């Protein structure tokens, strides 16, 4: 059952990949957090929350590395210092590849790197992106709880 091949390893054990990434995610995020705390003044509170938000997506992307299209796309955006924006409003579907994949056009705008993915890749990348996103959210909640207790 255990596959020795590294090519199928990722597919068979998605949670195993996440475990090692969690540590990287936490250490990257925490280091960024403390850096932000030490270098920001009380007058830049909006800037501070933006920097924290950026650090959240950065630690997600760095811990996923370059093996995923969504993390590569995020890393590119972060390095170019472009604003990290995701669409809030529901947008109209354009021309979908398959009828039951209408929502795929909406999904493409929510997943980093989505526009250049075909339907299959989009579904795979989305599942992985969600796993990392939920881990990051949980990490942030843990940090919040521990500071405020």
């Amino acid at each position, binding site marked *: 059952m255990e596959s020795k091949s590294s090519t*199928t390893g990722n597919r068979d054990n998605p949670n195993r990949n996440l475990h090692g990434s969690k540590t990287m995610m936490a250490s990257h995020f925490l280091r960024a957090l403390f850096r932000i705390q030490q270098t920001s003044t009380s007058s830049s509170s909006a800037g501070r929350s933006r920097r924290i938000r950026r650090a959240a*997506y950065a630690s997600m992307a760095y811990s996923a590395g370059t093996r995923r299209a969504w993390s590569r796309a995020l890393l590119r955006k972060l390095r170019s210092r472009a604003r990290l924006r995701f669409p809030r409003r*529901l947008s109209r579907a354009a021309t979908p590849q398959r009828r039951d*994949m209408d929502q795929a056009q909406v999904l493409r705008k929510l997943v980093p790197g989505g526009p250049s993915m*075909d*339907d*299959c890749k989009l579904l795979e990348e*989305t*599942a992985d992106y969600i796993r990392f996103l939920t881990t990051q959210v949980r990490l*942030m909640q843990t940090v919040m709880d521990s500071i405020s207790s």
Partner: protein
Amino acid sequence: MSSRRARSRQSTSSSRITDEQINDLVSKLQAVLPEARIRGAERVSAARVLQETCNYIRSLHREVDDLSERLSELLATTEASSAQAAIIRSLLK
């Protein structure tokens, strides 16, 4: 193993994605959604899974925004060393 990958790569590049492929990937996607969003583990339509996925991702993005703001306020009012100590303590638990 490698022939299967070559075949699937070939089919996606010619846009001939099979129902089976989509259904398989959709059910994997459904597995990462919280159960509350999709009632039970019944089979739901691909369209429904995608819709719930979009909603879920949007709510996660909002949570990141919200937590960033709250963390920002907390860090402003907390002394650095005590914040660090509290975090390390809770992570080591």
